[in-house]
């Protein structure tokens, strides 16, 4: 299988030092270059250069992951969208422009597009579904699910 965003898919090659740096940052993304350097017996400048190189190659990124709650998002909905009369790609792009839409995937399956949407409270659901998403040209059907519990959410591999 192959995807996706039209960019070339050859992964940058990482050596042992690169992967060791990634491992340290995986458990503590706030470790300073100096701390990482000491643990790996290299200089802080080397660590800094390696990180820059990997980020430039879009191989990895150190992120501050904030909980939905830190943004005041208390309602998460998963929507399956069907499209007709317009390219799915165009509809997807337009949906992606909505800030509360956290993820957009074009699917092969029952629905054409899958969305994950975060909202502050339940009162916003109606407007989001029937005004904003439904008003996107080409959207002909929305099937909705409301999250009552998120048991696991581990996205360490993402499109960068």
């Amino acid at each position, binding site marked *: 299988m192959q*995807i996706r965003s039209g960019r070339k898919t050859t992964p940058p090659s990482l050596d042992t030092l690169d992967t060791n740096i990634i491992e340290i940052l995986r458990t503590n993304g706030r470790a300073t270059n100096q701390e990482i350097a000491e643990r790996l017996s290299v200089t802080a400048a080397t660590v800094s250069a390696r990180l820059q190189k990997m980020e430039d190659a879009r191989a990895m990124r*150190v*992120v501050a992951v*904030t909980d939905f709650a830190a943004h005041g998002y208390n309602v998460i909905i998963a929507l399956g969208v069907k499209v007709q009369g317009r390219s799915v790609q165009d509809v997807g792009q337009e*949906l992606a422009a909505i800030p509360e839409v956290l993820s957009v995937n074009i699917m*092969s399956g029952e629905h054409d597009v899958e969305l994950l949407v975060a909202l502050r409270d339940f009162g916003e659901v109606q407007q989001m579904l029937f005004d904003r998403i439904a008003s996107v040209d080409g959207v002909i059907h929305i099937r909705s699910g409301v999250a009552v*519990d998120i*048991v696991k959410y581990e*996205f360490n591999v993402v499109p960068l």
Partner: protein
Amino acid sequence: MTGKADWARLDKLDQGIVEKLARDARISNRAIAAELGVTEGTIRTRVKRLQNEGLIQFTVVTDFRMAGSPNLCMMGIDADPSQVSELARSLSDLEEITCVIVLLGRYSLLAMGLFTNIEQLNDLVTERIRPMPGVQRVETSVSVHNLKYEAGIAKITRDVVAG
């Protein structure tokens, strides 16, 4: 739904800190302190508290290409209502499944995972998920194109790592 933490517990300073870290997770406490006009110690304490409360976490995300360009696969699962909670736990225990959401509406549960080949996905669904007690139906769909993913916003469910 999102647990004990709530927006009200983040004051203006917390919000300022979160904003800076969201832009650059590696920014030093000293630089944040200088920009927000407080001491470095204050920033250190606040960041620690946000981490301890599970509101922020610092980690590495790697690009799809580094994992062999997998496809995101979604499994919508209808299940016997009395077994949904137990199923959510069983699905979470599967290493291949990276996301499990208990839903109201379209399915009982939504599970996701990254797969580099269709056989691997099919084996998981037919041999491991369908036989789970309470599973009535599994609807599988495959992402062929990701247009948006916010790596910086998530449900923090893992144990918070000190540091």
